[in-house]
């Protein structure tokens, strides 16, 4: 049983992925077939050992795709594709210039047909190749989509024009339509691919958490080796400021580790002997010797990367509106063309006239503005959103955002500010006497809460302790000439038999507590830290609730830690103590109900898996880069009310796309009767075709611009 993971080329839409998956499932001898459209990957397991990869390749090739070895990194492949696409776009734009000039200004110039034919041919062959190729692959499988429509109409328009030109009929040339349609559509594809490219960057961002090198103890000495050479059971040394390069447990040493990529919690966690540490976590202070317990491929981070990659591609494809329209339109137009041919032949007895009219139907039917309908609305909609501090990545995001039923919220950093701030200080003894000593002790600490205390008393002259001691997991003890001070959690105090019970009953705000006491005088002070709610959280969640949305809270925090946020925002649903995979499981579980459209709002790497699995993901701009790259919507400011505005703009943009599609098809549909020859004395001329094309393009652009003025 050999598991294979390969790249696939030739998949142009989510439907291709389904077709390829079906094709491979039918193949005997292989199992567990998974095709991922976004990452362009296929994986399966060989059950029949006699089966070769070549045999599979033959089957795949027959379906119109091709398998490639996985040795080129995904990022590089995407970059190559992006480069190819931008070349195709610039090529098309360059050659459409003479095409437009010949068509609009110098149409009666004797060289006009020749120059138009050449420019149009160059655009079709170089930039439009993929439309023809995809249409051909689809046709062999008995399917049609937008590519079919484009290939047939541009191909026929070009061939028909060549034929007419050859006959000396310079008045029935459609070179310009053919070239311009391809140019507009190339522009649309270019935009679409940019969004797809960004999701792949998310995985690259996660990979950056993996160190390339590790300091391994070899025969008692620490040696820097490439990460691939680190083996199970090796001892690895990590110094303050470095990322932990392996999964394992602490053999020796002590330090504070920032595991926020996994848990989302901003406070570093203390690690000492026997504690587990994970790849990618950041050692903020101290130094650790770690015994490696998982290979590079099996680390928690590596598995997270795999799952993000899978989640991105395994999303149920929501077909783009354009493809849905095309699915009806293409067969209809082909039906009309056929009927025209048969009609002329049967009724009028003129098969040659019928052929000409049938071709004319196909030529006029291709809505040139089709390529403009989505991109222009998106550009205006995204621009409007960006002016309002919202980044929207793709068209689907707009469609889905306006249909969302359930919002899943991450707590720390999304609903809350994400950093604990000093909320309250209570003095149980004379404050002025103790502040200089407290500052003296805290200055030697690297704990983040210590910084919060220091910031509160910026102008105090500190008194340094004679002796200082750090008690891991509890706090610090400082000896002064007149007293011994304890600063830390309540277990530090109780280990010196100082009870905090009578004082903690008075504590109002719930949060992280730092106690100060002295061996001589008992409890002196209590500092309470809290991670505050974002100011707009209440209003934003209430508004969404009124609009009929359901809220869920998923947090890595404990039930006690999340209780305050839950009660403040009336959040009942959801789960506490979630690992990244728990969040994802919750999302997938919700999505099982087909009526629900699930949005995940998060800020951290630990949310990225759930975000990738959700129907739509929204990132907070102050959060991790990876979250922003997975997300289809990013709120640049940490203002949750922007999400409501985003929903509104999404609805408006979606509306505009629909109107645009209507305008794009309208003029062409009106012209079809002319092409069929139903109106005696009128027939299709390039002037009519040109006018239809111009009218629909202008209508679409104007309609898109109107979006700017909607409030």
């Amino acid at each position, binding site marked *: 049983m050999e598991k294979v993971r390969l790249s696939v080329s030739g998949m142009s839409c989510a439907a291709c992925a389904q077709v390829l998956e079906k094709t491979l499932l039918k193949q005997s001898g292989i199992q567990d077939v998974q095709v991922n459209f976004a990452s362009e990957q296929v994986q399966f397991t060989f059950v029949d050992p006699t089966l070769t990869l070549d045999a599979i390749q033959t089957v795949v090739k027959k379906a119109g795709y091709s398998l490639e070895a996985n040795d080129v990194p995904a990022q590089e492949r995407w970059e190559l594709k992006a480069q190819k696409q931008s070349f195709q776009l610039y090529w098309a734009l360059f050659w459409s210039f003479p095409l437009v000039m010949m068509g609009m200004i110098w149409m009666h110039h004797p060289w006009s047909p020749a120059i138009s034919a050449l420019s149009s041919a160059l655009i079709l062959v170089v930039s439009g190749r993929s439309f023809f190729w995809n249409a051909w692959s689809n046709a062999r499988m008995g399917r049609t989509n937008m590519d079919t429509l484009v290939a047939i109409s541009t191909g026929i328009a070009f061939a028909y024009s060549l034929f007419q030109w050859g006959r000396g009929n310079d008045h029935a040339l459609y070179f310009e339509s053919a070239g311009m349609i391809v140019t507009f559509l190339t522009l649309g594809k270019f935009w679409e691919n940019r969004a797809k490219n960004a999701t792949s960057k998310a995985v690259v961002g996660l990979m950056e958490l993996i160190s390339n090198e590790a300091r391994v103890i*070899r025969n*008692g*000495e620490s040696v820097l080796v490439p990460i691939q050479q680190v*083996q*199970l059971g090796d001892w690895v040394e990590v110094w303050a400021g470095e990322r932990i390069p392996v999964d394992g447990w602490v053999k020796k040493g002590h330090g504070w580790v920032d595991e926020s990529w996994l848990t989302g919690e901003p406070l570093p966690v203390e690690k000492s002997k026997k504690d587990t540490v994970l790849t990618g976590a950041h050692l903020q202070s101290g130094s650790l010797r770690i015994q490696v317990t998982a290979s590079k491929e099996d680390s928690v981070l590596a598995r997270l990367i795999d799952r993000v990659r899978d989640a991105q591609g395994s999303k149920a494809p929501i077909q783009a509106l354009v493809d849905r329209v095309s699915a009806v339109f293409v067969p209809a137009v082909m039906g009309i063309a056929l009927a025209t041919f048969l009609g002329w032949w049967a009724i009028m007895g003129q098969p040659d006239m019928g052929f000409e009219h049938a071709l004319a139907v196909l030529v006029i039917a291709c809505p040139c503005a089709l390529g403009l309908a989505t991109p222009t609305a998106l550009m205006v909609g995204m621009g409007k959103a960006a002016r309002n501090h919202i980044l929207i990545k793709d068209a689907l995001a707009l469609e889905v955002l306006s249909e969302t039923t359930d919002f899943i919220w991450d707590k720390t950093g999304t609903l809350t500010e994400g950093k604990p701030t000093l909320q309250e200080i209570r003095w149980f003894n004379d404050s002025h006497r103790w502040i200089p000593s407290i500052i003296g002790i805290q200055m030697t600490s690297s704990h983040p809460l210590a910084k919060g205390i220091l910031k509160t008393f910026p102008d105090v002259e500190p008194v340094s302790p004679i002796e200082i001691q750090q008690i891991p997991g509890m706090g610090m003890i400082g000896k002064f000439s007149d007293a011994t001070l304890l600063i830390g959690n309540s277990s530090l105090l109780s280990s010196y038999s100082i009870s905090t019970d009578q004082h903690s009953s008075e504590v109002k705000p719930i949060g992280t507590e730092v106690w100060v006491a002295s061996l001589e005088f008992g409890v002196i002070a209590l500092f309470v830290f809290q991670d505050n709610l974002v100011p707009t959280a209440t209003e934003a969640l209430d508004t969404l609730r009124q609009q009929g949305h359901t809220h869920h809270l998923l947090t890595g925090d404990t039930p006690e830690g999340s209780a305050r946020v839950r009660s403040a925002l009336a959040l009942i649903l959801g789960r506490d103590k979630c690992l990244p995979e728990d969040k994802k499981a919750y999302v997938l579980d919700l999505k099982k109900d087909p009526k629900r459209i699930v949005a995940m709002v998060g800020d951290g790497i630990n949310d990225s898996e759930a975000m990738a699995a959700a129907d739509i993901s929204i990132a907070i701009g102050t959060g991790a880069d990876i979250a922003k790259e997975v997300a289809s919507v990013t709120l640049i400011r940490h203002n949750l009310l922007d999400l409501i505005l985003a929903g509104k703009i999404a609805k408006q943009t979606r509306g505009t796309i629909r109107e645009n599609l209507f305008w794009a098809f309208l003029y062409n549909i009106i012209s079809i009767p002319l092409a069929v020859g139903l109106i005696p004395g009128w027939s299709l001329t390039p002037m009519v075709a040109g006018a239809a094309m111009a009218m629909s393009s202008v209508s679409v652009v104007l309609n898109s611009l109107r979006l700017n003025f909607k409030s």
Partner: protein
Amino acid sequence: MAQVIFKSNINCGSCIQKVTPILNALEGIDEWRVDTTHPEKLLTVEFEDIQPEEIVKALDTIGFQAELYSQD
């Protein structure tokens, strides 16, 4: 923390590679190194709660011999 030195037949770099996983996996061991330039191929181990015999036994499972040389 105690230290113990064994003489051994851990002769070269590749022998060290072989004993590394075994010695690393013994929880009581804090540090260890082999001096292959010494004629007796001295293995020095710093340990906390492990009996020197256990170290000898563990090395024996992969065919290496170690004999107590000195202990403090």
